């Protein structure tokens, strides 16, 4: 199959406008005849559900959470970008586009990224109209701050709880459509498979997590907005239940998986403290606006941070990158932190941390100013570490945070399975090999509010509605497959818990498919992961039955999928013989230890096609064509 991204012709700035005109429309009176399934009600899913319901479509929305407000989007702290140029500091749609393409190290599609920048302003308008309480200046207008990878202030924020406020906004619009009867919400329902009819996505199989009931749902199109897969590493900043099952089962039904190895390791997280730790906590990148990153110049210096005099500190980001300083993109900041620790400058009990210091800004602006801006983050830090960051510098270390990879989608956000659309972090679309801060919220809401409402109409208008029902054979066979898989998991009855095996997978991935990768390590991972998968299917112990609320069974199904996905990540990382963004191959670096891209060979999206579990996936390439930006080596010096 040839990968056709369906990028519209014409000049970059006019593509979306022209495309919207070219898309077919569904007659307003006909919209109510169409049913749409949406899996996931985070920012992307909830905004899509509300917007599609407002247009008149009937939406069935599913979440394994008890409420849309629990989705992982709620945890986003720092902010959301838009090209409003309110601060008058030189921002524009083109600059936001340019920064995003460059930040992604030239591994994303120009047309998609431009569209994202183009609709960004409308997102802010929409959220304000919904009552999202963004931070404001004394004059009553909206405040902005700067974020990594940009030299303009374009980030809108709501204290350190931007994701929460945006999600509550989308949730309120969603709730309004529940009341109107246009959205039927199915809480605590997990999608366990996708159903195809004549090659088109026409339904899903779900498990009711409360009583275990397996049910089929049919529709005219299916949207996945199921979030990212960072939890494949076990330890990440993602919520505990975040998982890949929805997209992974779709992959096994024919949707291609794009750039699985592009993982973002966030530079500012609270370091690991014990082996029992269940997750890692992010300290928003916005802290890098005012905090200064440093390590002791002397190796293995064990003095308390406040006892180390100024001249014996190495503010290494400011030193290496004088123009961006502490605000270099995430991949660069993470790798440099690792390098400092690898060379013996790390701090704290494990030596796997660097300092993020607020002494300067507290001196300049006062404690109150800092607490107004970052209060909740400081409290959170103190709660977890027992240390007071107003007095002692924070200790931070990189952690898995975001997955740029995801299901491949065309310009219309449709996957390689007709009728299956993918939104938000679950798709691979806009961030290339590295996502800039405050751009995921923007993308999720762009997809849900302003893109899918147009593009899904084109698909629906071209395909007659209402021909599917759950009595069709494919629903029955898929249901049987789902039930068999659940029974298999319960039948193993081995001697290791799901978590034990998941932790082991995480260790393998962090070691060999983490912040720095090389051929030898990746080949090793490709041996170890299938072995671990075998162990899982021989040794896992899942108590209870499938007919009741059974959290261990839920986890087991998700980890079974992670054990397959991890292998694909390693394979993708091995094949990409270059370094770009979050994908750093040690063999490919400049003399200054920066990522060395190979645009001749690798300026493409790697889209993988499932060939059977344990079989190597088949690679398809979508060549990236750059007509509006010049491919340069990123420099933040």
């Amino acid at each position, binding site marked *: 199959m040839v990968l056709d991204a369906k990028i519209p012709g014409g000049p970059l700035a006019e593509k979306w406008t022209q495309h919207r005109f070219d898309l077919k429309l569904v007659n307003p009176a006909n919209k109510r005849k169409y049913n749409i399934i949406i899996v996931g009600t985070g920012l992307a899913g909830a905004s899509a559900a509300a*917007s599609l319901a*407002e247009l008149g479509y009937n939406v069935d929305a599913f979440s394994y959470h*008890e*409420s849309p*407000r*629990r*989705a*992982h989007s*709620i*945890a986003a702290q720092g902010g959301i970008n838009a090209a*409003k140029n*309110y601060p008058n500091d030189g921002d524009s749609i083109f600059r936001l586009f340019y920064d995003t393409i460059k930040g992604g190290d030239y591994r994303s599609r120009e047309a998609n990224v431009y569209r994202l920048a183009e609709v960004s302003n409308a997102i*802010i*308008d*929409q959220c*304000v*109209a*919904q*009552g999202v*309480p963004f931070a*404001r*200046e004394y004059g*009553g*207008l*909206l405040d902005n701050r700067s974020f990594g990878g940009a030299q303009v202030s374009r980030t809108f924020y*709501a*204290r350190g709880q931007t994701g*929460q*406020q945006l999600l*509550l906004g989308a949730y*309120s*619009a969603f*709730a*309004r459509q*529940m009341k109107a009867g246009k959205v039927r919400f199915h*809480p605590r329902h997990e999608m366990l498979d996708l159903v195809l009819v004549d090659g088109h996505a026409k339904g899903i199989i779900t498990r009711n997590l*409360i009583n275990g009931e397996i049910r089929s749902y049919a529709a005219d199109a299916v949207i996945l907005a199921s979030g990212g897969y960072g939890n494949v590493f076990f330890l990440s900043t993602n*919520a*505990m*239940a975040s998982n890949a099952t929805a997209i992974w089962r779709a992959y096994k039904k024919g949707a291609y998986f794009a750039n699985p190895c592009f993982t973002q390791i966030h530079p500012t997280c609270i370091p690991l403290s*014990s082996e*029992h*730790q*269940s*997750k890692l*906590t992010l300290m928003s990148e916005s802290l890098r606006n005012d905090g200064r990153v440093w390590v002791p110049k002397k190796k293995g210096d064990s003095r308390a941070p406040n006892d180390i005099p100024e001249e014996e500190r190495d503010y290494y980001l400011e030193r290496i990158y004088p123009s961006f300083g502490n605000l270099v993109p995430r991949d660069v900041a993470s790798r440099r932190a690792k390098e400092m620790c690898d060379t013996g400058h790390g701090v704290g009990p494990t030596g796997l941390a660097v300092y993020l210091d607020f002494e300067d800004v507290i001196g300049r602006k006062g404690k109150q100013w800092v607490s107004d801006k970052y209060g909740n983050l400081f*409290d*959170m830090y103190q*709660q*977890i570490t*027992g240390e007071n960051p107003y007095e002692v510098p924070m200790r931070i270390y990189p952690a898995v945070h975001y997955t740029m990879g995801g299901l491949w989608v065309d310009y219309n956000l449709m996957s390689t399975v007709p009728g299956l659309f993918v939104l938000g972090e679950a798709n691979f679309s806009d961030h290339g090999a590295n996502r800039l801060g405050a751009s995921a919220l923007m993308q999720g809401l762009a997809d849900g509010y*302003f893109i899918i*409402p147009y593009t899904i109409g084109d698909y629906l208008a071209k395909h007659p509605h209402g021909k599917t029902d759950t009595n069709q054979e494919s629903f029955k066979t898929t249901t049987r497959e789902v039930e068999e898989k659940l029974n298999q998991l319960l039948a193993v009855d081995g001697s290791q*818990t799901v978590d*034990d095996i998941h932790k082991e997978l995480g260790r393998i991935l962090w070691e060999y498919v983490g912040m720095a990768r090389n051929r030898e390590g990746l080949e090793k991972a490709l041996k170890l992961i299938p072995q671990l998968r075998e162990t899982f299917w021989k040794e896992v*112990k899942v*108590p209870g039955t499938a007919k*009741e*609320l059974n*959290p261990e069974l839920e986890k087991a199904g998700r980890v079974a999928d992670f054990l397959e996905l991890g292998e694909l990540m390693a394979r993708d990382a091995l094949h990409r013989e270059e370094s770009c963004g979050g994908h750093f191959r040690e063999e490919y670096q400049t003399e200054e230890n920066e990522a060395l891209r190979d645009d001749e060979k690798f300026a493409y999206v790697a889209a993988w096609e499932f060939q059977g579990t344990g079989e190597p996936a088949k690679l398809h390439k979508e060549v990236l064509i750059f007509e509006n930006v010049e491919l340069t080596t990123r420099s933040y010096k």
Partner: protein
Amino acid sequence: MQVFLKVWRQADAKSEGQFVTYTVENVTEDMSFFEMLDMLNNQLVLKGKEPIAFDHDCREGICGTCGLFINGRAHGPLRGITTCQLHMRSFDDGANIVVEPWRAEAFPVIKDLIVDRTAFDRIISAGGYISVNTGGVPDANTIPVPKPKADEAFDAATCIGCGACVATCKNSSAMLFVAAKVSHLALLPQGQVERKQRALNLVAAMDMEGFGACTNTGACEIECPKEISIVHIARLNREFLKASLL
């Protein structure tokens, strides 16, 4: 350190529940309360026993999924945090810890420590929003909001919908939760158009879900992990009164 747990176990909504005791060894101070439960559950699974079901997700105090009654207090002994933010350093070696689910008629137990809080969603869908469709809204900066108002609205909007206010209230009232939403939107210019109807609709929905009446004990404010003030309840009362008079 070691701790002695007394945990509420209940197979499902229909079954009777009971307390079961567990001794957990090798607990360390830097473990979170949930990591201690994870460890216990891991041991239970290996022994072929059923692990304790409890709700959690973000584990950083923002999703509102978690909520345990610990030694008679919602979200445990500390103020201003959720259960997932509680660490074992807050307990002494050898501590006895009683762990229960939220108890309220409007929050039926689903299993063990997990309760059903979908009543909150139904309250919000009764009018906890500003009725705007996607698209066609004015430029964001055409709606100035005085900073103090915006900040106060934010203080209310920060509610995570955990239900601790209900669980801790002797009347099982959801006033703080409802007040937070009404207050958030009533303070903003965008929320003015539907202001009155919103107050009436949300209060009606709350009553219908079987939450109790508020008698101003103020217990909710003390246990609210986001420290939402009962000043918002006073505002809700005013809003409701004004709306009912017209």
